[in-house]
């Protein structure tokens, strides 16, 4: 049997591990961590073998489906896009699990932690491997559930419980949009088949959906006076889901709060699972986006805006993990931008975006695990209290610096020499340039360059404040155990070299998922459907365009060094409550006040829900009133029961007489 026949085990093993760990883990040493580790390691091996097989022979796409209910199915689809994601997720997750055995060793509820992370990984793997949009949505929601459970892992802390709830609800706004997109898509396909779906056709399967793109693009409905193209509507709703899950503006508010969970969970959420799901969704349904250029525009602009928006907040945060959280949002903005520029460069956009996703997964997981290592050792995550940690924890410091260089994107343009973040981010910025040159507008390009500068500043601010200089408070500290430093070193290796080693093959491998391997899509033809032409990819940008990202990256490093390393500027003046810009940034643009406190609590809860309660009292009152009417009527009629026989006789006789007269009259009239 070929290895592909075992592909279904990839999500299944961690899911089984969840069940086993949850029920048996309490009795095993170390919370039964060995079960998920073995399961995920097996998944990783299978994915790796499949990926290698696909590299040899890209036509060998694995696609197996079973009927679920009605015209829906469950199934697996491993094409190059899915294969690389599977490998990355299982790999990073495996490392994080190994790291966690050290990090979580003091927690009483370890077994619950490992069970939940195992389920988390399983959901994410199932999300990637699914061959239909419904199964993807199911896994998508399960990912949300696991993030809820894990962010609220220390549920005794009210802040953690509240952050978990916020994360779940905010992403759920996106999920509803995603669900609405599926609903619209389902109804459209249902109508295309005229309600009679032949047996054996599963209408929400990706290849089925993609084969109907031309028909979908031709459908449009008037909504509020606008002619809404169905494909645009569906893709925008899908993107709405991605906005929630991938923390794009304005649904990013949950991500920084999600730091209330254990740091390893943050690493899992921010690097391997959860947030990348949104990017993966857009990549997976990319043929639909290609045929709906308006949606791609939205993706590109919102991505670029999120990239810089989050970066500005990252600069002022004092919490180690929060800086990284905003960095994640910002980098996700880059990935979305990379997909959005598909309007200019076609399917290659998937390649560069996923490439950045994978590289980001390595260095972001590394950053978080390093931060976790620091927090584990020192017991605080306020950067203002740290300083000079590098002396105590050399391995952690070294790996973190590598990750920072990768995040800032340092390398030599024109060659494939550089940190992994450089290779992929550079590609996205270049694509944004092409996007502008082909009439998409220069806004995304300009913002992405500015965001690159800010990225470099905030990450080196973090490095300098934490690892260099003198300790600002007295903290104990020691290098972390081997179970933690080994994963760090492995990840550092990947952050250092993965991009450079694979750049040539990777883009081609993933980009051609849609063109050659999967459904043989005619990407330029789809673009024609959207009414535009793809630009031929060119490497003839001016030299300054190639060098600009690196220049701003180095400039950021220098600025951070001057300000935080050399302290040539007195920070106290800038960082004060009176500085309106600082205040605005530090309060995160007051989004918490506006979105959470005002919109959800004041408007929805106190406004609508309480109004609803008043209305309901009204209904209750009406019902009671009807009841009281009959009581009162009975009370009034009771007075006729005088208890005097004569009166009754009188009434009876009168009634009989009148009835007779009435009948007589009626009979006369008729």
């Amino acid at each position, binding site marked *: 049997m070929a290895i592909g026949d075992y592909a279904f085990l990839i999500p299944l093993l961690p899911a089984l591990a969840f069940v086993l760990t949850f029920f048996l883990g309490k009795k095993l040493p170390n919370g039964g961590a060995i079960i998920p580790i073995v399961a995920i390691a097996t998944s990783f091996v299978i994915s790796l073998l499949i990926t290698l097989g696909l590299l040899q022979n890209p036509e060998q796409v694995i696609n197996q489906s079973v009927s679920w209910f009605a015209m829906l199915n469950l199934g697996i689809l491993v094409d190059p896009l899915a294969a690389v994601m599977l490998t990355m997720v299982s790999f990073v997750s495996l490392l994080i699990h190994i790291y966690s055995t050290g990090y979580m060793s003091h927690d009483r509820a370890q077994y619950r932690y490992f069970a939940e992370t195992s389920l988390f990984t399983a959901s994410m793997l199932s999300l990637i491997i699914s061959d239909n949009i419904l199964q993807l949505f199911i896994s998508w929601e399960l990912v949300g559930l696991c993030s809820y459970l894990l962010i609220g892992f220390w549920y005794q802390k009210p802040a953690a419980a509240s952050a978990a709830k916020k994360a779940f609800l905010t992403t759920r706004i996106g999920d509803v949009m995603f669900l609405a997109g599926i609903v619209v898509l389902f109804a459209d396909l249902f109508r295309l088949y005229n309600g009679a779906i032949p047996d054996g056709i599963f209408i929400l399967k990706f290849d089925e959906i993609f084969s109907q793109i031309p028909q979908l693009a031709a459908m449009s409905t008037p909504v509020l006076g606008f002619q809404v193209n169905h494909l645009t509507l569906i893709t925008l709703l899908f993107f709405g889901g991605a906005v929630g899950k991938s923390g794009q503006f304005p649904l990013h508010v949950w991500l920084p709060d999600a730091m209330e969970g254990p740091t390893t969970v943050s690493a899992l959420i921010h690097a391997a699972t959860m947030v990348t799901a949104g990017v993966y969704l857009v990549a997976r349904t990319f043929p639909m986006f290609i045929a709906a250029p308006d949606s791609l525009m939205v993706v590109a602009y919102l991505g670029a805006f999120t990239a810089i928006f989050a970066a500005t907040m990252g600069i002022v945060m004092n919490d180690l993990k929060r800086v990284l959280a905003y960095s994640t949002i910002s980098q996700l903005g880059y990935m979305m931008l990379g997909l959005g520029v598909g309007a200019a460069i076609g399917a290659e956009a998937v390649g560069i975006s996923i490439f950045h996703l994978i590289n980001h997964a390595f260095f972001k997981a590394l950053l978080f695990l390093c931060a976790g290592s620091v927090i584990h050792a020192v017991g605080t995550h306020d950067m203002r209290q740290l300083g000079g940690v590098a002396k105590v924890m050399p391995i952690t410091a070294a790996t973190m610096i590598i990750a920072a260089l990768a995040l800032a994107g340092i390398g030599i343009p024109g060659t494939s020499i550089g940190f992994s973040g450089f290779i992929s981010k550079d590609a996205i910025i270049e694509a944004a340039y092409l996007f502008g040159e082909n009439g998409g507008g220069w806004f995304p390009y300009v913002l992405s360059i500015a965001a690159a500068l800010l990225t470099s500043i905030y990450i080196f601010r973090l490095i300098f404040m934490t690892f260099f200089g003198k300790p600002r408070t007295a903290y104990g500290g020691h290098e972390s155990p081997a179970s933690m430093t080994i994963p760090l070193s492995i990840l550092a290796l990947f952050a250092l070299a993965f991009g450079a080693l694979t750049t040539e093959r990777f883009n081609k491998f993933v980009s051609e998922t849609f063109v050659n391997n999967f459904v043989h899509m005619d990407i330029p033809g789809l673009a024609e459907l959207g009414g535009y032409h793809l630009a031929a990819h060119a490497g003839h940008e001016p030299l300054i365009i190639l060098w600009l990202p690196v220049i701003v990256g180095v400039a950021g490093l220098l600025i951070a060094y001057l300000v935080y390393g050399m302290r040539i500027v007195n920070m106290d003046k800038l960082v004060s409550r009176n500085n309106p810009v600082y205040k605005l940034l530090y309060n995160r643009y007051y989004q918490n006040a506006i979105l959470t406190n005002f919109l959800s609590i004041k408007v929805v809860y106190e406004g609508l829900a309480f109004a609803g309660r008043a209305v309901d009292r009204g209904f209750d009152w009406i019902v009671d009133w009807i009841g009281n009417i009959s009581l009162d009527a009975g*009370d*009034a009629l009771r*007075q006729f029961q*005088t208890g005097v026989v004569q009166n009754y006789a*009188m009434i009876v006789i009168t009634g*009989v*007489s009148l009835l*007779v*007269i009435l009948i007589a009259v009626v009979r006369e009239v008729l």
Partner: protein
Amino acid sequence: MLNKQFTIMQIITSVYRFFRPRIVGMVIALLFLAIVLVSVIGTSWPAIDQLPQNLDDQSNIKGIGLLIFTEFVVPFELLSIVLLSAMVGAIYIAKGEAGR
């Protein structure tokens, strides 16, 4: 609540007192009588053409006696029980406290 009841009752009893002098009763009784009479006159009553001419047949005591003890014997017996129990009941009720 009590107040409301009381006033309505007062009105009814006063109205009742007012009409007490039999006018209403008279009117109703006459109305009823008129209706009955009108309908009696308006109806064509089926009847046998003539009474039996034989004078011996004029007496129907024998026939009634026969009917009572043949066809309607069960109601007759029941009636006797009713009468008996009514008698006993009437005596019991009327005797009242004295017996106790």
